[in-house]
């Protein structure tokens, strides 16, 4: 029983990662109809916003410490962050400690900027082009972004830990009446889940309670006619892209303490996020989120030892298996709309 609750919890946080990435992707892919292979790269860029901010915060000057030696036996040069000089050591250290949450503020304008730039400079010209061309150009862009990041940050992972206050885990089991220690759950993952729900809610609200969503959907289905009705659809597409980029970026920012970022993390998520969006149903935001959680939880269950022993290898294929079953029984995914990218 506790094992099951545990895997559901695990599925929730994996699900929130999938859901967040798929949410951003579905804004571009399910709503604007652009097969955006650079979406994973946006997620990755978000994560590197965190890395960049913590690099900025730890910008240092060197102080030679003659008592210690470096690997060549020379006196050790110690880096002292400027921020220590300005705010004093303890405040400075606290600011550095809170780099990840601070990055949210840092990342929002940057990611919106990147999204808008990308749309204006590139994607704009590809709405009417075949999906194949969109794949090629966005894949090319993804590679370029990745390589640039790799060039500056290297190929290995870079740790970006959560603030000290969120290190450690909650004894969730004890709270709901299991034995102590039966179900423990890291604080940061709880934060991630809540953050995901908040972001999903905000995006939903924006699209639900304004006509923005309807207009963009209409524009996707028939740009020409929407223009005929006096609506400047290009501008709305740009805004949509900016939002999508920001959502992807924030998903990346908050993900860094869970897995240390590297330049390749976007590609790792790319395929899964396409699967999630399509299983959720093209053009459906709730579908993408639902599918994210369903697949996340399924994956968690499939990686239970007992399950793997029963069916070796299910953990590796369960998402795809589920995708096949769902798409065969529900032709347009969980909540898909008719006619969106069916040809």
């Amino acid at each position, binding site marked *: 029983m506790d094992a099951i609750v545990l895997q559901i919890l*695990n599925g929730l946080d994996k699900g929130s990662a999938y859901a967040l990435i798929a949410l951003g992707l579905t804004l571009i892919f399910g709503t604007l109809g652009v097969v955006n292979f650079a979406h994973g790269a946006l997620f990755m860029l978000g994560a590197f916003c965190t890395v960049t901010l913590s690099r900025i915060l730890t910008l240092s000057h060197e102080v030679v410490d003659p008592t210690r030696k470096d690997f060549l036996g020379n006196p050790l040069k110690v880096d002292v962050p400027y921020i220590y000089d300005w705010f004093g050591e303890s405040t400075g250290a606290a600011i550095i400690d809170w780099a990840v949450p601070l990055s949210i503020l840092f990342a929002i304008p940057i990611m919106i900027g990147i999204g808008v730039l990308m749309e204006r400079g590139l994607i704009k010209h590809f709405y009417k082009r075949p999906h194949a061309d969109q794949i090629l150009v966005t894949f090319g862009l993804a590679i370029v972004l990745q390589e640039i990041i790799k060039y500056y940050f290297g*190929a290995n992972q870079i740790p970006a830990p959560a603030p000290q206050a969120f290190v450690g885990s909650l004894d969730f089991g004890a709270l709901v009446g299991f034995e102590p220690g039966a179900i423990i759950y890291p604080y940061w993952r709880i934060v991630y889940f809540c953050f995901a729900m908040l972001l999903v809610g905000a995006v939903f609200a924006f699209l639900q309670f304004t006509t923005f969503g309807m207009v963009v959907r209409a524009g996707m289905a028939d740009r020409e006619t929407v223009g005929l009705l006096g609506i400047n659809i290009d501008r709305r597409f740009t805004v949509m892209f900016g939002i999508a980029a920001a959502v992807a970026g924030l998903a990346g920012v908050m993900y860094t303490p869970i*897995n240390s970022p590297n330049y390749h993390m976007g590609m790792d998520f790319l395929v899964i996020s396409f699967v999630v969006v399509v299983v959720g149903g093209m053009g459906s935001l709730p579908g993408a989120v639902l599918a994210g959680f369903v697949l996340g939880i399924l994956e968690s269950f499939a990686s239970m030892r007992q399950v793997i022993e029963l069916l070796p290898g299910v953990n590796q294929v369960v998402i795809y298996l589920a995708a096949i079953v769902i798409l065969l029984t529900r032709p347009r995914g969980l909540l898909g709309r008719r006619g969106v990218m069916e040809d």
Partner: protein
Amino acid sequence: FTNDPTGSSVTLGFNVPQTGPYADEGADELRAYELAVEHLNGGGDGGMMNTFSSKALNGAGILGKKVEYVTGDTQTKPDAARASARSMIEKDGAVMITGGSSSGVAVAVQALCQEAGIIFMAGLTHSNDTTGKDKKANGFRHFFNSYMSGAALAPILADNYGKDRKAYHLTADYNWGYTTEEAVRTSTEAMGWETVAAVKTPLAQTDFSSYVAPVLNSGADVLVLNHYGGNMVNSLTSAVQFGLRAAEANGKNFEIIVPLYSRLMARGAGKNVAGIFGSTNWHWSLENVGGAKYAGTNAFVQSFGQKYGFPPSQAAHTVYCQTLLYADAVQRAGSFNPCAVAEALEGYEFDGLGNGPTLYRAEDHQCFKDVLVVKGKENPDNEFDLLEIVDVTPAAQVTYDASIFGGELGSCNPGA
């Protein structure tokens, strides 16, 4: 034989991952290769050529021919690695291929070199198979292997954590993972440990939470992460997040073990590695800690550090050694003929390359030398000082019978 160098130079093929997850290891390997070539051609301070027990090398290239090299990208994919190696052989006329970053690649490229009649000097590969089940007459490995990691680690673990432990293994679902799990299991079980469970994790996994979370309730009190690279960074991060470091089980402190460590990896995992045991082939502080027996280490660190500004990784060290060893073997054999070179390497004993006295065993072309047991440092002095050498296990203790892994060496192929 294939690619007998006719001109005044000889070409070596450095086939390393330049893209993909091991690109940083690959980059470090490449630095070491360049350094080795410089030293072979008489440039720089000579590095370990000065401490190497064999004095056949004289700084005038190999057999008087200037050493040149070509580089290629394995992408850590057997297919791509073979394509790259084939182009080195067919297009550039390389006489020897070296490099690699994973056992899959090493096995694939080694087989290719066997077929083509070229010597293969393996780089970073740790699976037993490379010189076990899949060994080849034209292939040689300086790096240690899973078996040795297990054999070296087990006694230290028993000393530190006791003989009554229950281990839970998470194993990367591929050949290296299997052999490492197997090695650690057998050697710890021999100490009296019990293995509660061993779960295979997909190689492409990035979030290990659903594998890590159930560990605490399984009755285990030790978690063994048979992971490397990104896998290990992520699984260790998950394990720490789920409070395993702080937890108690069966009345003991819960412990985590990482059988194969590398410094580059430790950097990715950050503070999470503190206090965690593992093994490694070599570390830049070895001579400072272990004394003159490990001569060569400081010479190498010095010349590498001067050139690049940071200490070499174990990957850099092993490929530097491999390059010198090859050059030396050619020099001693007096010929580039792969069969002559192989003969010169087989059963060769040497010293001064930073690992102490070492044997290139004839039966399986595996090097036997001391193995380092290391631990993540609690309070690193500087950004390179992440691992602390806990113990050095003597070579004798990690030596095994050459036949235990099966496989056939075949006969050396000099090529057409």
